[in-house]
């Protein structure tokens, strides 16, 4: 089709309403850097964006800002970048402590104290590294356009609710909210339930004080043969058989 024939379809394309053959034709024109269609579609996208900006203004709750800033790279997450700095600071503190303790004839006690502190910093750093790896796994699943998404709890006003993403290559991601922290001595356990099979343990996790939870089961998963993903409340050591009823269940 010629550019003139596609002129009336730019807005439909930008709005997601174009159908074949026009949809494919516009994509083909864009792919070959068509000097007419590229600015035409760009103007159409600008027009469609204005429709979105015309939504009624609403003030978001203040807690939402904290949630967004918790994304890695936001203010709260900036501590990732500071871990090596803290490690160096801790090392310097250790050296200073040694010198001081020799001078004061209390070397062994001070060294032990510094060692405990260094161990604590190292443990914190390792914990942060694990958390970063977990978030990276979550992003990877979230970014797969082919990932199967299942919503749970959306029809009821009460908690918990959220979504489960299943990607055949990268695993299962659970995003939940309104999931209160498990009581003392208990923990949440995710289960992948195959069609006609027994639930398979898929990892332990805890929700945050504000009731949100993110849990990843990395690795390949057979989405087609999966009937549901569920979460149960278990003893802190976890379980091999789910404690029914489940706290939440997302049927595929």
């Amino acid at each position, binding site marked *: 089709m010629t550019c003139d024939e596609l002129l009336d379809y730019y807005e439909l394309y930008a709005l997601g309403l174009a159908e074949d053959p026009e949809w494919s034709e516009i994509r083909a024109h864009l792919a070959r850097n068509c000097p007419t269609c590229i600015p035409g579609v760009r103007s159409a996208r*600008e027009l469609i*964006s204005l*429709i979105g900006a015309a939504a009624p203004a609403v003030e978001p709750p203040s807690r939402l800002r904290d949630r967004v*800033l918790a994304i890695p*790279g936001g203010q709260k*997450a*900036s501590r990732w970048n500071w871990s090596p700095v803290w490690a160096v600071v801790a090392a310097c503190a250790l050296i200073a402590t040694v010198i001081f303790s020799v001078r004061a004839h209390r070397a062994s006690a001070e060294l032990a104290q510094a060692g405990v502190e260094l161990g604590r910093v190292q443990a914190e750093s390792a914990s942060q590294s694990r958390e970063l790896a977990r978030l990276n796994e979550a992003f990877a699943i*979230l970014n797969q356009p082919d990932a199967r998404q299942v919503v749970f709890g959306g*029809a009821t006003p009460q908690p918990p609710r959220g979504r489960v993403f299943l990607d055949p290559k990268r695993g299962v991601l659970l995003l939940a909210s309104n999931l209160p922290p498990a009581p003392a001595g208990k923990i949440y356990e995710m289960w992948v339930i195959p069609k006609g099979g027994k639930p398979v343990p898929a990892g332990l996790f805890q929700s945050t004080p504000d009731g949100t939870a993110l849990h990843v089961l990395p690795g390949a998963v057979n989405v087609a043969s999966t009937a549901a993903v569920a979460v149960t409340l278990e003893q802190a050591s976890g379980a091999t058989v789910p404690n029914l009823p489940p706290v939440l269940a997302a049927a595929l």
Partner: protein
Amino acid sequence: MLLPLLLAIEFGENDADLVKRLQRRDPRAMAELYNRYGRLVYALILRVVRDGGIAEDLVQETFLRVWNRVQGFDGEKGCLAPWLLAVARNRAIDYLRSAAGHMRNAVEVSDTEHPAGFADMEKDLLNSDKVRRVRVALEKLSQNQRAVIELAYFEGLSQAEMAERLKQPLGTVKTWVRTALRSLRDELGTAVTA
């Protein structure tokens, strides 16, 4: 109520500089991004899903996705606000479709929110005057024309789905859609391309 948002968009730090800071993983850039566009994104998503809790989840997901993909965004040529709105709209409609048991439209989503699609747009596209003009233009549409535009944009319905929802022939719905878009283009064309 919209004024502070629009003032922030119009008189804040240059978007290109903000994109560079996001790409450098400047820890304050995400805060600035949220300060500038958080209300706009939240308002759009809430309009789509009509549930505050779900909207909060989707806003977080929107900013996470932008953070994760900003390396592919050309800050010198691209326009942040329309890209954010496209990502937000896709997240919200994706949620609606999933909640209704429909499959995700992966091709459509990846196509409409690719960072390259927002190159060379007007830098102050979403200024107060243009937003006001689009509201006026939407109000000028007939009830049916406005309904199909809102169903398409805010609910992500195809023309066939709109025909089913409105219990109207598909041809009638297509006519309403095309007439409405032509009217908006005529009303706002100079605003968009100025």
